[in-house]
């Protein structure tokens, strides 16, 4: 009986998401028109010079000679059929390109979400428990430093320390390109390459969630239900873990869901520093080469990811706090 309304809810949310996603794509399409220069000039520019007929031929070929509303109409029609078009720059279908780059992105993000929520909740929890001791100060100051440090710098320092000086991790990439491991060895190899980028990308969010967790823990601790729980004769650890923690974790989950989009953005820097073959890097290149089909495809995929993650967050609420109904 319980599962039925959840499924209905999910279906309703997914249907609501369709106009949101289409709106995002349309807005992105129109905004991209404002950027000067087009794919044809970039391709010709990269060629180090080209004849005029070559450039105009490129324009006709990519449909860039059509008016904007025609280009938009064609694009929206295709996207409704889940046809994301062709990247002329990469000479590949956009869907194929995205799928190839999706899983490194998901891997990096998954690891980052896990590390940052786990690390943030734990250190925030301990900071609150050790309130105003030197341990609390240490955690808080570390969090502020991590929060204020630019990602690329953290990445480079980790490379210099753990890769060059200590020789523990590879500098960059996702796999050992000389060995090309297979099977379990490949899994280990990828995990080995994942450590530094995931830590780099997590640090900022760990800091954020630590601060948030600490604050909500302190706030919850003063509420009436805590007094009631204590009055029932529960031990301090029972009060903390069974009552306060569960309530305090809700805002962290909310913020994590909202920040998933920002995580996509932050990964551009980390992907660039660590040569991680993810979507962020692809988006960056697509923007600078005016490969709009590809860029819109990435926007589309990102919009879908954000919608799905927020849906998952809403469902997690229900399990964390049974009072929340859907």
């Amino acid at each position, binding site marked *: 009986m319980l599962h039925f309304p959840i499924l209905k809810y999910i279906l309703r949310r997914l249907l609501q998401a369709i106009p949101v996603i289409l709106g995002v794509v349309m807005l992105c399409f129109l905004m991209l028109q404002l950027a*000067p*220069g087009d794919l044809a000039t*970039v391709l010709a520019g990269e060629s180090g010079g080209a004849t005029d007929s070559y450039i105009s031929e490129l324009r006709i*070929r990519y449909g860039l000679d059509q008016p904007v509303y025609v280009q938009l109409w064609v694009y929206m029609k295709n996207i409704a059929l889940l046809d994301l078009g062709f990247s002329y720059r990469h000479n590949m279908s956009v869907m194929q390109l995205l799928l190839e780059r999706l899983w490194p992105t998901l891997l990096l993000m998954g690891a980052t979400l896990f590390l940052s929520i786990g690390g943030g909740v734990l250190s925030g929890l301990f900071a609150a428990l050790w309130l105003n001791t030197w341990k609390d100060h240490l955690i808080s100051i570390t969090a502020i430093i991590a929060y204020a440090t630019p990602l690329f710098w953290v990445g480079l320092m980790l490379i210099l320390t753990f890769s060059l000086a200590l020789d523990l991790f590879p*500098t960059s990439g996702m796999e050992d390109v000389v060995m090309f491991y297979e099977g379990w060895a490949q899994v280990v190899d990828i995990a080995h390459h994942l450590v530094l980028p995931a830590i780099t990308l997590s640090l900022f969010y760990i800091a954020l969630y630590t601060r948030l967790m600490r604050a909500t823990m302190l706030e919850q601790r003063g509420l009436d239900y805590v007094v009631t729980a204590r009055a029932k004769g529960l031990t301090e650890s029972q009060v903390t873990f069974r009552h306060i923690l569960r309530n305090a974790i809700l805002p962290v989950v909310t913020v994590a869901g909202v920040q998933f989009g920002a995580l996509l953005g932050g990964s551009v820097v980390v992907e660039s520093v660590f040569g991680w073959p993810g979507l962020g890097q692809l988006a960056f290149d697509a923007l600078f080469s005016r490969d709009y089909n590809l860029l819109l495809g990435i926007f589309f995929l990102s919009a879908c990811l954000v919608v799905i993650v927020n849906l998952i967050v809403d469902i997690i609420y229900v399990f964390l706090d049974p009072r929340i109904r859907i």
Partner: protein
Amino acid sequence: MNFNIFRKTFFTLILLIGGMISIAASAKSGGTLVMLVQPEPPTLASYLSTSGPIGTVAAKVYDGLLEYDLDLQPQPSIAESWTIAPGGLKITFKIRKDVKFHDGKPLTAKDVQFSIMNVAKVTHPRGPNTFRSVTRIDTPDSHTVILNLDKPAPYMMMAFSGYETPILPKHIFGKGDLRAHPNANKPIGSGPYKFIQWKKGSLIQLDKNKNYWKKGQPYLDRIIARFIPDASTRTAALEKGEAHFAALGSVPFNDAKKLANNPNLTVTTKGHEMISPVAEILLNTRKAPLNDVKVRQAMAYAIDRNFVVNNIWFGYGKVATGPMSSNFAPSGLYTDKVKNYQVPNGVEIANKLLDEAGYKKKANGYRFEVMHDSLPYSEEWKRFGEYIQQAWGKIGIKVKIRLEDVPSWLKRIYTANDFDTTGGYLYNLSDPVVGVHRAISSRAIKKGRVFSNGSGWSHPKVDEMFDKATVEPNLKKRGEYYAIALSLAAENIPIIWTHEMNFPTVINNKFKDVIVSPLGIYSNFDRVKLK
């Protein structure tokens, strides 16, 4: 290695990986060369686009008719011999009989004919220009190719490398749309390395072609082209030995010195003799006051080229005298006997010239203001812009700096012509006809054509000399024509040519015979071997 600290500090996930480190760290590279390519090539269709990184990979897969030695002399490759008929209107190539494409099919005269007439002459960005005088190609037998020309084209003999004019298999590329061909990113050629796979965003794998026509070559089992967007990480990967080779701007100039001190690495500037980039400040001569030759000369006098080379490019470069690189000095085409702007009292002369031109200093100390668009490539170009701002500030020209992204910059300079000055560089390439003419010839003033005559300046005498030099087979006479054109260019200075750029190439000492061609990173690497 101190794993104990690790265990205590990190979570269980990292613990697991920590234990595995020893396995991965012991990896030896064997016969694999990892080269850094930056940026990642958009495609591998070197017959469609000459974009830098494409050629660095594709030139290992596609053979050319000829190769070139470090003195820029043509050497046999899949053409074992060639003859040029007197008058230069007929060129005959004899093709080797033992050359096979990677799919096992033999390479014949038909493939050569197709690759020039249907590919290079049609789809290549420079090809239509290079081969414009080729009217017909005859193939009297399966291994003889005769090029028929309507005008002599001596410069063409320099354009037969696998990088510039790749020989494609007709049975594959002859079918379907050449501009969106399924094999564009899965190249099949006859070169020393076979294309295996492309993991977008990380690497391209090329394996040894065991049936390569040069017996025993190539020596390496594998070449991996790796893409690391961040410059500092690239340097770290080279230092650590994860990558073995980097060239053409993939190593930042400020890191080159540090890498040169590493005992495991060699840094060289060889391998750009057929590329020869010349850095410049492009002046928009369509606009006042830059349409005044005295103003342009003053601006040229105010720039200290030695300072630019030593401080912005960390010594990687040589002061330029004009659009042509001194790499053409051995063939007699280059001359430095032109107006010289690199003089000790340059600022003084510049101030005098500006006064004469009627641009007196105003109350605020400035004569007029220009906007400088910094080239949006690497960091050096920003520094270059800042230097120009200071240098021209000394002669009373106020400079504002603007920075846009590459597509906006290209459009502003070459389509809209809406700029005052900008930094940049042009490749001289294999011959001045291909690389130099486009900068100042009147025919290269065309809206929308990138990396052409951006200054808008031209001179009938220069055009005439260029036309003569294009069809003149005698090197000495060509040199005389160019001497006239180059001195006119220097006198009128529509572009301030600052220096011939040298790029540091970093090679891991485990390997040898990496740079054995004037094409450097664009050569086929069939002689590279482990020490």
